[in-house]
């Protein structure tokens, strides 16, 4: 009993932090109609700034925290001004991808500046603990609880009782009507991003107090938890966000108390998917859920029209297509590459790029053609890789690669359907969150399911693939692997272009362009979205199996969210839904990575910057989208 109450109090403390994150999401979602993926990163920056001022510069903790909070607020405001507002008139997907890119840039910059190590965070109070009836509560928990409640109360009063606060809410509900009341909606938008940064900064400092340490990769899990809290309460409602945050905190504390702390993050991801599936309008969402749209449509915010479409009419640059002779020329060059390559390292690099190209094709089908932007593909890819690795190392070392690819592909398709199962009922940006959570769950399973996956150790000494149709030739030489990858890619491209050009592909595009209209015309949208995820998952699984054979050792660390992001960058660079673009994007970006190997630490930042630049200046990708 004592234990339970203590757990609950502890959960309420961290729940306060989640509530703050959730408020940031809700405010920005309302005013800018955008799920800000960089919200978790603002937390991280806030925490690190406070750490720098307090520990490295030796300022008093209160002053350090205030400075950090102020700077984070400015950062939030600046991000909107510099990157998000210019995209308001672009395709709907552009600001979303921009916040993803900004999140990666911020997280990676934090790693570069402060190193990837966990830093001890100064504790504001001695580690006193009080008994409260039956429960124990620490002084730090009380401080977090107090600060959180004070922040939330101040914010609530501001929004409900002041002229400007009311104007912010009015802008969130209906910017055009607010403007006709004389409200400067652009200023309200800036203010909102500033407030989101402010609560982000405060939250970052409180997280530091809670764990007594900070680390750079905490942004993504925290971002997801904040979003989960916002969704749990019904996205769009500030009281809902507070209750959602507290509930999530308590759930998590109980789960890690009774099941073990390894489940701490997993519980949030699973909860997110469950809420999305069972009650996407949230606990307090009272409006009837749109038959199609899920949480976003319930909020009435995102239309069912294409993410690729712009809210304003703009001339679209035509998609660039590859003439057949150029394709033939490129294929000939690719096929003979091992013969004229300077050395076998380059053959290996380009071979790996071809494996990534298959993954990029997989993503461009589901994200581009079917309009379901997935950031869970690294997890699906990993499922394919693990299936191939485990089968060939443990059960049948001479298994023909044809069979391996088929099995890995099937497993990938299954994982894809699993992710799609939750995403298929949703629309807009929520799909991104759902697939992100699905990918993280797959990653967590790889980490936790030790008897099968060997946990963090991973699987190594993966044997070379055996080609069945040539009577069991072992493909152990680099160029043999390269040719295998090239052959599979050619086959994948052939199949994918046939599927995209078929009736199924046309219906995928119909669902992407206007889901409501597609459903009204009798298209079973959910079934077609699931088909897209299955097909895409199959290709991702195939790519994963090839990857396992290429690198011969895999571990959960190979399938981080960053890989999903990298592939998304490739696909966006090439133009969503553009197969040629996906292949060229993979080759260019992987080659760039290798060229940049010398300064490998900057690699992900570079990806982020490239992605952001493409979104800003050519939102339909270099080759245009179809």
């Amino acid at each position, binding site marked *: 009993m004592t234990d339970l109450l203590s757990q609950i109090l502890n959960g309420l403390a961290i729940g306060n932090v989640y509530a703050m994150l959730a408020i940031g999401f809700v405010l920005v979602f309302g005013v800018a109609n955008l799920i800000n993926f960089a919200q978790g990163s603002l937390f991280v920056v806030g925490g690190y700034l406070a750490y720098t001022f307090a520990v490295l510069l030796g300022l008093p903790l209160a002053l350090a925290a205030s400075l950090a909070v102020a700077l984070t607020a400015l950062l939030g405001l600046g991000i909107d001004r510099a990157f998000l507002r210019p995209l308001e008139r672009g395709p709907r997907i552009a600001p979303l991808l921009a916040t993803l890119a900004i999140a990666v840039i911020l997280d990676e910059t934090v790693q570069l500046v402060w190193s990837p190590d966990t830093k001890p965070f100064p504790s504001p109070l001695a580690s006193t603990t009080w008994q409260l009836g039956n429960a124990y509560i620490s002084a730090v928990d009380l401080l977090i609880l107090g600060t959180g409640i004070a922040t939330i109360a101040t914010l609530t009063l501001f929004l409900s009782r002041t002229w400007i606060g009311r104007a912010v809410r009015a802008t969130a*509900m209906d910017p*055009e009507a*607010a*403007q*006709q009341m*004389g409200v*400067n909606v652009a200023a309200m938008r800036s203010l909102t991003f500033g407030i989101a940064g402010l609560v982000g900064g405060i939250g970052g400092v409180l997280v530091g107090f809670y764990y007594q340490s900070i680390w750079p990769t905490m942004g993504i899990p925290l971002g997801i938890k904040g979003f989960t809290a916002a969704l749990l309460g019904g996205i769009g409602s500030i009281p809902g966000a507070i209750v959602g945050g507290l509930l999530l905190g308590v759930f998590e504390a109980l789960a890690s108390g009774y099941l073990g702390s390894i489940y701490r993050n997993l519980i949030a991801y699973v909860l997110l998917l469950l809420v999305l599936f069972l009650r996407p309008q949230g606990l307090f969402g009272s409006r009837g859920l749109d038959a199609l749209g899920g949480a976003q449509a319930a909020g009435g915010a995102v239309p069912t029209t294409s993410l690729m479409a712009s809210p304003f*009419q*703009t001339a679209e640059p035509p998609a660039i297509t590859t003439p057949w002779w150029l394709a033939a020329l490129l294929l000939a060059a690719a096929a003979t590459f091992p013969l004229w390559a300077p050395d076998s390292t380059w053959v290996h690099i380009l071979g790996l790029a071809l494996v990534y190209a298959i993954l990029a094709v997989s993503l461009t089908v589901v994200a581009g053609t079917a309009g379901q932007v997935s950031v869970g593909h690294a997890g699906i890819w990993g499922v394919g890789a693990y299936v191939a690795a485990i089968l060939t190392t443990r059960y049948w070392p001479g298994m023909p690669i044809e069979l391996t690819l088929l099995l890995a592909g099937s497993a990938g398709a299954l994982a894809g359907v699993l992710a799609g199962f939750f995403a298929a009922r949703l629309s807009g940006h929520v799909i991104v969150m759902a697939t992100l959570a699905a990918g993280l769950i797959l990653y967590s399973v790889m980490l936790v399911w030790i008897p099968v996956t060997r946990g963090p150790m991973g699987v190594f000494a993966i044997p070379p693939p055996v080609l069945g149709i040539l009577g069991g030739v072992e493909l152990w030489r680099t160029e043999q692997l390269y040719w295998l990858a090239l052959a599979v890619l050619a086959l994948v491209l052939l199949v994918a272009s046939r599927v995209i050009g078929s009736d199924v592909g046309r219906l995928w595009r119909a669902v992407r362009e206007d889901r409501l209209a597609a459903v009204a015309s009798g298209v079973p949208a959910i079934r077609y979205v699931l088909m897209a995820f299955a097909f895409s998952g199959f290709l991702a699984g195939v790519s994963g199996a090839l990857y396992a054979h290429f690198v011969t050792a895999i571990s959960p660390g190979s399938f981080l969210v960053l890989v999903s992001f990298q592939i998304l960058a490739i696909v966006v660079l090439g133009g969503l839904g553009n197969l040629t673009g996906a292949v060229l994007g993979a080759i260019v970006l992987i080659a760039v990575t290798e060229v940049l190997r010398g300064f490998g630490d900057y690699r992900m930042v570079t990806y982020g910057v490239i992605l952001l630049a493409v979104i800003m200046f050519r939102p339909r990708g270099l080759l245009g989208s179809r």
Partner: protein
Amino acid sequence: MHQIDEWAVTDIEPDRRDANETPRADDVVVIEGVDIYYGAVQALFAVDLRVGAGETVAVLGGNASGKSTMIKTALGMVQPRTGAVRVLGRPIAGLEPYRVIGLGVGSIPEGRRVFAEMSVRENLLMGAFVRRQEAKATLAREIDEAIELFPVLQGRMSQLAGTLSGGEQQMLAMARAWMRKPRLLCIDEPSMGLSPLYVDRVYEAIAALKARGATILMVEQSANRALEVADRAYVLRSGHVVVRGRAAALAGDPAIRRAYLGERAIA
């Protein structure tokens, strides 16, 4: 009877044209030779319009005639490619809509657009947003006056606006604009989607506001009701002003009624 040329302006009473259409120094709205484009599509073609102080002017026309664009032009929500717009004596070229509101304009947008998740009182306060520096007591008194003027809001001050019926929301939108104490009131399609009972109430309210000396620019599809309350009217067709004149003269001209105002709507 008038000969009706395809796109030229027909002055319903040519002898009164100068009196009606010549801009004056104290005009509240003057739109001169304005072309409006949405991307490549032209919505208004060299239109002129003026609203004198104390006048009620109606802009009539069917779907896609450009009448809503006309009110958006006066509010600065669309920027003309050519021509000039003056509101309350000030050219509004390049002015953000919220600044146009700041000049002394109140707006009742098409489709009511009340703030659904705010209470009725908060909606009224949003109407007075540009007057936020004024004394609290003044605003509180004016909220009471708004309730007198729009009695349907009585006793519902803390109800969420989204839970009101369509007609009640229209009343709230009007009360909200009235809280602005506007020197020009812009009304976009006040009767759209309302029951006949509420159409009556809406027009009673407009007549009451007019009686209190309000200057009104309104856009309306159901011509007969608008012509009852308006002093003058403009008829738009495919982005051109095709007829203009005193409301009474327009309402009394059978050729005009048949050609532009849709007999059925009037009958």
